[in-house]
C-alpha cells in the first residue's frame, strides 16, 4: 500500500489526467462525477486521527453537511497514531491517517474484529522540504536530507551535514548551523518522513519537534537558517520548497503537481482514511455517501482548496470497488 508500490497504478492514472499546468492552479480529474445527494442520510459521524488531514476532513464535512444538513460530523485531529485506537474502540467512524497503518495496528484491529480495516486514498500530499524564502540553496538530494535530519545516515551520505557551509552555501550562511524543524512523534508525517527521507533511521536530537504542520512552516518562516518538512498544503509565501533529487547525480525536481503525479518528486504519499468495514456486509448509507462525496468532483475540489493534490479517477474507481460502491 505504500507510495512506491502504488506507483505503477498511479502512473496509469497520471496519463489519463490532464493538468492545467499554465494556471498554477490544479484542476480536478474531469472523469470524477458530480456529487448527487440521495435521500435518507442522517446520523452522526465522528472522525479521529491525523492532523495533516484535519483541515481537509473539516472541508469535506462542511461540504457534506451542506448537502445533508441533518448529519452532524465531529472532527478531532491530534495525530495519525490516534486513529487506530479510536477505530478499534469504536469511538470513531473514520480514521484519517497520513501514513498507512502499521502491521501491529492492523493486527490489533484484526484481533478485535476478525477482519482488516479498509482504507481509502482521499488525497495526495507531497512533503515539502522548506527553507526560509531568502535561502539560496538550489537543490538537495535525499541522502543529503537524510544527513541533515538524521544521526544514523542510512541514506549513505559520507558525512554529517551541520552547517549551511557543508551544503556549499557561502556568505553569512557559510558557518551558520542548520536549524532543524520537524513534527512530534504522534504525527504520521513524522513516521513517513522517517521511513522515506531518513531510510528508517533516527532523527537527530536537535530537531525541534513541533505540534502542528503549520507550526513547522511558521518556524522556518521566522528562522533564516531553518529547514523543516511539512505537507505541501501548508506552504506560505514566507518559505520556499527546495527541489529534491532522489539520488546523487539525478535531476532535481520542483515541488509541483506535475512532478508529483508523474512520480518524479520523491517524497509524496497518499493521505488515507481508514474505515471499519465488515467484508461481507455493505457499508451503511451514511459512511458510504461520505466516501462517495470524497471521491466526487466537489470532494476533490476541497482537496485543492486545502492545498493538496486531488486523486485521479483511476484511483477513485479502484478504491470504490473495494467498498462495493459504484462511481456512476
Amino acid at each position: 500500500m505504500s507510495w512506491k508500490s502504488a506507483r505503477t497504478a498511479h502512473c496509469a492514472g497520471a496519463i489519463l489526467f490532464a493538468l492545467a499546468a499554465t494556471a498554477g492552479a490544479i484542476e480536478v480529474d474531469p472523469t470524477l462525477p458530480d456529487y448527487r445527494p440521495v435521500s435518507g442520510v442522517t446520523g452522526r459521524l465522528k472522525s479521529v486521527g491525523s492532523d495533516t488531514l484535519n483541515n481537509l476532513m473539516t472541508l469535506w464535512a462542511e461540504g457534506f453537511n451542506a448537502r445533508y444538513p441533518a448529519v452532524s460530523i465531529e472532527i478531532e485531529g491530534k495525530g495519525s497514531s490516534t486513529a487506530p485506537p479510536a477505530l478499534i474502540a469504536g469511538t470513531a467512524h473514520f480514521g484519517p491517517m497520513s501514513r498507512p497503518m502499521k502491521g501491529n495496528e492492523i493486527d490489533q484491529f484484526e484481533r478485535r474484529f476478525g477482519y482488516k480495516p479498509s482504507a481509502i486514498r482521499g488525497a495526495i500530499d507531497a512533503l515539502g522540504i522548506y527553507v526560509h524564502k531568502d535561502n539560496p540553496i538550489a537543490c538537495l538530494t535525499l541522502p543529503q536530507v537524510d544527513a541533515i535530519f538524521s544521526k544514523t545516515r542510512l541514506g549513505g551520505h559520507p558525512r554529517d551535514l551541520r552547517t549551511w557551509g557543508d551544503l556549499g552555501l557561502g556568505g553569512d550562511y557559510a558557518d551558520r548551523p542548520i536549524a532543524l524543524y520537524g513534527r512530534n512523534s504522534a504525527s504520521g508525517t513524522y513516521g513517513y518522513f522517517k521511513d522515506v527521507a531518513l531510510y528508517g533511521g533516527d532523527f537527530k536530537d536537535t530537531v525541534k519537534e513541533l505540534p502542528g504542520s503549520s507550526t513547522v512552516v511558521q518556524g522556518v518562516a521566522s528562522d533564516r537558517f531553518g529547514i523543516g518538512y511539512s505537507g505541501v498544503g501548508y506552504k506560505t509565501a514566507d518559505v520556499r520548497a527546495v527541489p529534491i533529487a532522489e539520488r546523487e547525480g539525478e535531476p532535481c525536481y520542483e515541488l509541483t503537481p506535475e512532478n508529483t503525479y508523474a512520480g518524479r518528486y520523491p517524497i509524496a504519499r497518499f493521505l488515507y482514511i481508514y474505515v471499519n468495514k465488515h467484508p461481507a456486509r455493505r457499508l451503511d448509507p451514511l459512511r458510504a455517501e461520505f466516501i462517495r462525496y470524497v471521491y466526487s468532483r466537489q470532494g476533490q475540489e476541497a482537496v485543492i482548496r486545502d492545498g493538496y493534490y486531488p486523486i485521479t479517477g483511476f484511483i477513485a474507481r479502484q478504491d470504490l470497488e473495494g467498498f462495493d460502491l459504484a462511481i456512476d
Partner: protein
Amino acid sequence: MSDRRGRSTSLTARGEPFQWLLGGALGLALAMIVGLLMLVLWQGSNAFWPRPLELIELRDGTRLLGIEVRREPMPGGEGMRRLLRVGNFDLYGEDFRWIAEEAIASTRFPADAWMVERMEWGPFIGFLIGLERDGTLAETDGDALAEAHREARRRLREIRRIERSEIGAINHELERLRLALRRSELRHGVDSLAHRAEEARIASESARLEERFAEWLRKAKALRESDSRERVVLADVVGRRISLPLSQVVRFVRPNDLSLAGKLEVYLDRWWEFLSADPREANSEGGVFPAIFGTAVMTILLAVLVAPFGVVTALYLREYARQGRMVSLVRISVNNLAGVPSIVYGVFGLGFFAYLVGGTIDAWFFPERLPSPTFGSGGLLWASLTLALLTVPVVIVATEEALAAVPRSMREGSLACGASKWQTIRNIVLPRAMPGILTGLILAMARGAGEVAPLMLVGVVKLAPELPIDGNFPYLHLDRSFMHLGFHIFDLGFQSRNSEAAKPMVFVTALLLLAFVFAINLVAILVRARMKRRFAGSRF
C-alpha cells in the same frame, strides 16, 4: 535622609534600593502584561478594518491587485519588499506574493476594485463584470448589486432554515424511531410478537415522516435551483473571468471607494459575522458562534458542578472537622491539587469519566446505540466535570478563607441565643461568607474558561456544528462534543493551511476570549461589592 545615616549603614539597612527593586519588578510585570494586552487589542481590533486594494504594475509588465500586509527590508539590506495578499486561490494556487519594491513600476488604488468575500476558496480580489441571470449577462452597478445580493442571501437563509430546522427535526425523529426499533429488538428478541408489533408501528410512523421529508426536500430543491440561476461574474486583474452563484458571496466590498462611515459599516458587519456565524473553510473564515456558545455552556455547567462540591468540602473542613493532622493532610492535598498540571486532569477525565463511567453508562442505558458511544467518548458533561475537578481547589481555598473571616463573636452570639450549629452556619456564617465564596467560584469559572489542554482530551473538537443546546429533546445534550474558544485559537494558530491568512483570526479570537474572561471577573467584582455593601449596613 541617607546623609544622616552616614557611611556606616550597610546597603541592606537602607530601604531605597529595595524599594526601587520591588517597584521596578512590579513595573516590569505590569509593562509586560499591558504590552501583551495592547498587542492583542491592537491586532484584534484591526483585523476587520477594510484595507485599500493596491494595483501594482511591475517593470516586467506583470499586474497585481491585492492588499499590502507588511513590508520588510530586502535580504541584502538595500530597499524594501512588500507582502501582498492577492487572494483568488482558485486561480493562482497561492494567496500571498512577495514583491521587491525596486521591481515596481507604478502603483495606484483603482476605485472600482472589489474585494469579494466568498463562502469557499477565500476572498476574490478583482473587478465586477456583471450579473448573469438564466445565462444572460447584464452589467450592473453597486446599488442594484447590493439589492440582488440581499435577495440572494435571504433565499439562502430560507434554504438553510428548511434544511436545518424542518428537515433536521424530521431526521431527529427518524433517528429516534430507528433507535426505538433497535431497543425493542434487544429487549424482546428479533422473532418475538412484541417486536413485530413495534416494527409495524415504527414502519408506519417512519413512512409518514418520510413523506413530509420528501415534501420539504422538494421545496428546498426548487429554491436551490432558482438560487443557482443567478450568478455574479467577476474578473481578476488580468481579465480572467470566474462566475459563482450570487448567494455564495458573503460580502461585496469596494474598499478604495468607501467613506469612513462606509468602512465602519463593513467593519461592524464583519464583527457581527464573526460573533454570530458558523465557521467556514476549515474554521479559518466565518464566525466562531459555536465556540462562544460551547465555552459559555461549559463554563456555566462547570460552575453548577464545582459550587456544591467546593463549598460543602470547605464547610466541613472549617466548621465541623476537628483540626488535627488528618485535616491538615487534606488541606495540603487540596493545595497540591491546584498545582497538578492540567493535562493530567485531562488524561484522568478521559480514562475515568469518558471510558470507565461513560462506557458503563452506555452499556446500561444506551445499548441500542452501540458500538457508537453516547457517553463513552469525550463530551460536554465530562469536559465540565474534568474542569470542575481542576478548579475545585480554588473554590475550597476561597471558601475556607471567607469562613475564617467571619468573626468568632458572631458565631458565639448566635450559639448563645440557642441556635444549633447548622442554624448558625446557615443564618450567620454563610451569608457573611457569601461574597468571598462567590469570588472564589467566579475565579474558578474564569480559570476554567481559559483552560484548553485537558479539554482537548475530553470533548473539545475542531468542528462540531451541532450546539450542545437545541430544540430537540432532551434540549441539553450533555454527550455532545463541542467547540471552544481556547482550542479554536490553538487550531487557527498551529493547524490552519495558510498561517499568514489565519493570523488576524487568531488575534481576534484571543481578544474575544480575553473579553469573555474579563467579563466574568468584572461580574465577580461587582457582585462582591454589592454584597459587601449589603452586609456593611447590618453589622451589630
